[in-house]
């Protein structure tokens, strides 16, 4: 048995007799570079795990598919009546930005579920005893989830043509940027939950329960105009609202439709988000989502710093 260890001396170059030189390894004090390496490797592990799990990639796209093609086509007739130029405007185009957001929603949150999984299988311990800041682990995890989710979103972006959305580079890049932001925040939300919840089933049940209301309140499936006051308030409290709105704005401003049609659909279908009449500017809208992501990353880091 020991012979196996003797046979192929690794760095046998400077070997003196039977004694193998021990590789000199000095682990440096913690610093920014070290933390960045930690972020990098946690991020890379997410990608490796995702690459080996093709089933997950496929199943995650089923739901947005159903929404766009089944629900989108089915509701076209019903929705058409309320549109000013029903003939020239497809309902699929309307829900496309919302469904795009949905395509990253589940992947992002559930990628955080791997933390609960890691805890059950012990790997989390390997991570938590490492001499790195908890924040770098959380950030790496969130970036990993964001990358995977955005990748899913990009696949869905390829289907833009079916919703009559043009393949405009500015539009595509803008959407990818927003998807990244959205999925980072969503993963941070998931990680924050995973820091607390110790059972995988409980995590799935709880996030499942929270995800649908978030999605429904975001205005992904209906325009946020003429709603009753209570619903208007709820939609403004939903962080997803502040990303679905700008995404729809971006999509609608790149549609190949006459100017007067564009003005009409913008007014009726993509109204600006307002707080009691005050229009929330784009930077603030995205800023809210970013701030929430950073805040939840902080909470998750603090949560992982606790010891028994």
């Amino acid at each position, binding site marked *: 048995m020991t012979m196996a260890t003797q046979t192929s001396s690794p760095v046998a170059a400077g070997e003196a007799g039977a004694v193998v*030189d021990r590789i000199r390894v000095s682990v440096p004090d*913690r610093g920014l570079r070290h933390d960045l390496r930690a972020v990098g490797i946690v991020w890379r592990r997410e990608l490796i*795990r995702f690459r080996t799990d093709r089933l997950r990639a496929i199943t995650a796209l089923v739901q947005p598919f159903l929404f766009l093609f089944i629900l989108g086509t089915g509701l076209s007739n019903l929705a058409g009546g309320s549109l000013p130029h029903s003939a020239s405007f497809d309902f699929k185009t309307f829900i496309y930005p919302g469904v795009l957001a949905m395509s990253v929603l589940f992947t992002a949150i559930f990628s955080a579920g791997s933390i609960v999984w890691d805890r059950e299988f012990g790997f989390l311990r390997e991570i938590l005893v490492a*001499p790195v800041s908890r924040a770098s682990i959380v950030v790496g995890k969130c970036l990993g989830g964001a990358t995977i989710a955005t990748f899913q979103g990009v696949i869905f972006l390829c289907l833009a043509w079916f919703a009559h959305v043009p393949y405009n580079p500015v539009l595509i890049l803008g959407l990818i940027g927003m998807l990244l932001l959205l999925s980072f925040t969503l993963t941070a939300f998931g990680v924050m939950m995973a820091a607390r919840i110790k059972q995988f089933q409980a995590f799935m049940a709880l996030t499942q329960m929270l995800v649908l209301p978030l999605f429904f309140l975001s205005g992904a499936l209906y325009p946020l105009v003429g709603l009753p006051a209570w619903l208007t308030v709820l939609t403004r409290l939903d962080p997803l609202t502040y990303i679905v709105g700008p995404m729809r704005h971006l999509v609608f401003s790149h549609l190949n439709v006459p100017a007067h049609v564009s003005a009409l659909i913008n007014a009726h279908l993509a109204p600006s988000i307002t707080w009691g009449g005050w229009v929330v500017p784009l930077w603030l809208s995205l800023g809210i989502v970013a701030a929430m992501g950073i805040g939840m990353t902080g909470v998750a880091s603090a949560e992982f710093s606790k010891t028994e």
Partner: protein
Amino acid sequence: MAAQTRTVQTGAGPVAHRLADGSGPETVITVSGLVKQYGDIEAVRGIDFTVARGETFGFLGPNGAGKSTTIKILCTLANATGGTAVVAGYDAATERDAVRRNIGLVFQDTTLDTYLTAEQNLRFHAELYGVPKAAVMPRMRQVMDMVGLWDRKDSLVSTYSGGMQRRLEIARGLLHAPHVLFLDEPTVGLDPQTRSSIWTYINDLKSREDITIFLTTHYMDEAEHCDRIAIIDHGKIVAIDTPEALKASVGKDRVQIHTADDQRAIAELAAKFGIEAAVHDGAVTFSVAAGEQFVPRLFTEFSIPIRSVSVSRPSLDDVFMSYTGTTIRDAEGGAGNEFMRNMAKLRSGRR
């Protein structure tokens, strides 16, 4: 043994802030007055000990005795309720990162990502511990060669057997060249053959690395591999010395007899020979000096039929018994063993 280890070291140790690189007996772990409470349960009840550099130090005790709790405190995974622990020159409570950089850990339960390959698992560890980039590959090869897994580095860990996984974990624990390697029940759940092969690797690494090993076990035969052992029972250290010294302190041989009537046999042993006996592991057990001379006397003078007899030199089992009044198997409660283990797990909690 420890001294030999140091003299063959060519590549000295990593840069240590408070550990001088020269040889000589230095203290690597100092524990004083350590207490840990989980609610009303006192898992560790005030223990003190030191471990010298290069030593292999074993914590021996039944499941639930406080071994894992102590190791968790030393590894910065749990906070002590009272007392202090200094590891590699750093306080385990206040200088966590410094302690973590200087220790390697192998837990009872596997902490590998079984969906990654062995190499990916090790690379993950190297990046997390900030091993200098240029050193990662050669060091990875060295530690994997040491446990005989280099040719399987590209296999998914899920295809590894239990013994291979444990070996990989030992390799990973050594990757960042720690000063202290903590092994929490390194062979638990493995078959006897694999257990002994794990020990071959551990003994081998002692001759290759400048390292102090702290391990816990509830297998008596494994404690024999240690330079020194501490016997822990109900959260307290009841004895601490080299295995030889501990065995010598018991002195007497252990005699076990199977009789037709155990209770009467115990009474008669007390009456005729003045020997205190008790039933352990299903046999009447007692200690006498020079057991092989005592047995013939026993046969001629004893009135109860004896079905079988065995005489053994003092083992760590006897040491354990003389200090705790029970055998380690009794302490773990025979069939209740699994239950105890689960309780211990429950108590220590998973993080």
